[in-house]
């Protein structure tokens, strides 16, 4: 195994929109910048598969800016530990890479929230973003019957994308009621850009049944999903499908921030207006500071990039955008709040922790997250609680604990290599 070592004035973790913006701005300020991502190419989840020639204007713009910047792209590489302050360790295809930094910007993005319901562990029940990612990376979805269920704007975007790839998108079931969506729509109306995006989406989704106030209660099938049971306050029915794509809005990836000792508040990384976390020299931008979408991520990334590179005046130029987008973020949170009917979906026999196959009935007997971990191994598998943690928090109100190295499973020799001081 080869170990290599690099050092940067500003190191950015995560090459989604926030990270790309941060890296570009920091590099523009003339300091030595590195940007790490666990995917082979920059773009994050939202711009997965996009290139500099993309017809998604934002994506093409920023990917071009990044490519022409002096920021060094380190990918694919997965950060798993910080053996000492100022030095991260990451796995790459040829061993462990040590990444020294003076300033760090965490742009670790978000993942989908999954809620357990009977049948959710069947093959072909996937995340909405998950199915989209797989299609973007080469899977053929043409002609397949797809039902999307869950919550949040991602469902629509994914529905449109899958349809463009020939999927037979039958139904989009959004758990939030129309009343909240309409209020959210009015908030959008005050933003030209968001509303035009929404209208475009609507066009691409014409003739797909979009149901608000509708949620999945079960998935059925033998060996893989074959049908889905949906419910509104008025009725319950079953629909056949080849794929069920579901996601209940997003949860931030805060494991690295936790590992580094950054303070969280309400599950998000707390930052000052320059995006600096409670740990001096460690900044955070994008979804980990609050689920706010693309524009907020980019604004925060720009602020963090300039601030970390010592150009606070230039960072301040984006305060207005940051503030206005945060209002959108709050509207988003209100609109897609999870309804209480989603809590009792799991039965005693429903698996909650998919790594260790821990059932809801056993978890119900526990007094806390720690007790659940110790007595049932919930959250003790390789995903380290990333999937069951947010579900358990929604179901029982238990909060996950602090992170420990490695924050992703790594070979024993890589974990051992974390301290090879010179």
């Amino acid at each position, binding site marked *: 195994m080869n170990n290599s070592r690099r050092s940067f004035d500003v190191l950015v973790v995560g090459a989604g929109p926030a990270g790309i913006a941060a890296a570009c701005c920091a590099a523009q300020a003339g300091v030595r910048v590195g940007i790490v991502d666990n995917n082979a190419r920059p773009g994050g989840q939202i711009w997965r598969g996009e290139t500099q020639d993309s017809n998604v204007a934002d994506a093409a713009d920023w990917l071009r800016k990044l490519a022409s910047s002096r920021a060094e792209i380190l990918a694919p590489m997965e950060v798993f530990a910080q053996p000492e302050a100022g030095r991260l360790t990451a796995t790459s295809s040829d061993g462990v890479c040590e990444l020294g930094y003076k300033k760090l910007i965490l742009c670790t993005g978000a993942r989908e929230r999954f809620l357990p319901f009977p049948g959710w562990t069947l093959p072909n029940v996937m995340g909405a973003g998950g199915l989209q990612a797989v299609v973007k990376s080469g899977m053929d979805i043409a002609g397949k019957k797809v039902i999307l269920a869950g919550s949040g704007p991602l469902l629509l975007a994914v529905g449109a994308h899958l349809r463009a790839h020939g999927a037979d998108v039958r139904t989009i079931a959004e758990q939030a009621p129309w009343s909240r969506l309409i209020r959210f729509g009015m908030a959008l109306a005050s933003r030209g850009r968001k509303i035009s995006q929404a209208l475009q989406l609507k066009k691409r989704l014409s003739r797909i049944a979009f149901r608000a106030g509708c949620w999945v209660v079960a998935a059925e099938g033998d060996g893989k999903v074959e049908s889905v049971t949906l419910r509104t306050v008025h009725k319950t029915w079953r629909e056949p499908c080849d794929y069920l794509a579901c996601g209940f809005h997003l949860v931030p990836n805060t494991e690295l921030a936790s590992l580094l000792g950054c303070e969280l508040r309400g599950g998000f990384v707390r930052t000052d207006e320059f995006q600096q976390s409670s740990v001096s020299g460690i900044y955070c931008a994008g979804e980990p500071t609050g689920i706010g979408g693309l524009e907020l991520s980019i604004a925060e990334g720009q602020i963090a990039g300039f601030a970390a590179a010592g150009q606070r005046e230039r960072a301040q130029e984006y305060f207005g955008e940051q503030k206005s987008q945060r209002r959108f973020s709050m509207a988003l949170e209100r609109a897609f709040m999870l309804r209480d009917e989603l809590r009792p979906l799991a039965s005693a026999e429903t698996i909650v922790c998919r790594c260790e196959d821990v059932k809801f009935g056993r978890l119900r007997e526990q007094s806390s997250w720690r007790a659940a971990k110790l*007595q049932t191994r919930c959250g003790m598998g390789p995903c380290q609680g990333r999937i069951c943690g947010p579900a358990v928090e929604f179901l029982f109100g238990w909060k996950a604990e602090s992170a420990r190295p*490695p924050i992703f499973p*790594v070979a024993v020799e890589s*974990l051992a290599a974390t301290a090879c001081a010179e």
Partner: protein
Amino acid sequence: MRAGAYDVVIVGAGIVGAACAWACASEGLRVAVIEADIIGGGATGAGMGHLVVMDDSKAQFALTRYSRSLWQQLVTELPGDVEYESCGTIWVAADQEEMEAVRQKKEFYETRGVPAEMLDAKALRMAEPNLREGLAGGLRVPGDAVIYAPCAARFFIERAQSRGAELYLPRVVTGITAEGVRLNDGTVIAAHRVVNAAGTWSPMLTPGIEVKKRKGHLVITERYAGFVKHQLVELGYLKSAHSMTTESVAFNVQPRRTGQMLIGSSRQFDMEGKGVDANILRRMLGRAAEFLPGVNRLSAIRSWTGFRAATPDKLPLIGPWPGHENLFLATGHEGLGITTSLGTAKLLVDQLLRRTSEIPIAPYLPSRVPESVHA
């Protein structure tokens, strides 16, 4: 139940406190267990969970052998989630000098009725093909086992509860008095006897007892069923366990029933922080790879630390605390609390009821004058 009705209040629901609660309740005593956090949340949950006979001293041998026999009697009653695996231990000898020590160890065990089997280099390779070539051999102790200790502690508590014991959780004891214990909300729980089974927290409740925190690190892997078949320990383990001042690591790998490998071990004194120390991790994993090169390629999913309650002479404190008529101790089990929990509980009950124990109690009494560590 009316205040003052308890015969015994046990502070701490780690595996030792839980076993004591079960033993006391089984004798018809009215028992309360008070736990500040969760069942098995301290060293019980952080440790490896081995049931081993150890020969660091004659007294340690006597207590571990006694306790292991109590575990063996219990096997059929243990619920599935205790994950009892009678995998046995192999003490691995790196060279001929260590093989000589293996011979002595075998004789020591066998003359005391504990079966043990010498393995030469070839037999060791047959038993554990993933060990590196060139090792001299080892000693197999087939009666040793591993368990998942937090569920064992819960099982003991459930048994105690079925015999009338009451569990107070989460409730924090702030002081032990002549009347019983005082909780942080001012409540007094009255009892004739109090057992301090609070592990590393025990000195906070009973100033003057010689229990210090000894930090350990562990790493667990993904599932690789059959990668090793026995608990593997380097013969030098006791040397590591002995060093009282410095930090030390030793090769100790356990196969769990899940197929996961649990990799240890490390010992550090005077460390308060719970943080994972990258240098200790490197040394500990490096040591494991020296014996078991293939471990390097296994996927590690988690590392953590915990604290053992260590005494200067490596023996637990079991019995009355001199000068305090109502106070008993069951603490200071260092890295052997899982194994010795059942023996400790028996000895403690014998002390409470003023009976003679099946093994001599003197080496474990808190009033003892420590003998030489090398028995």
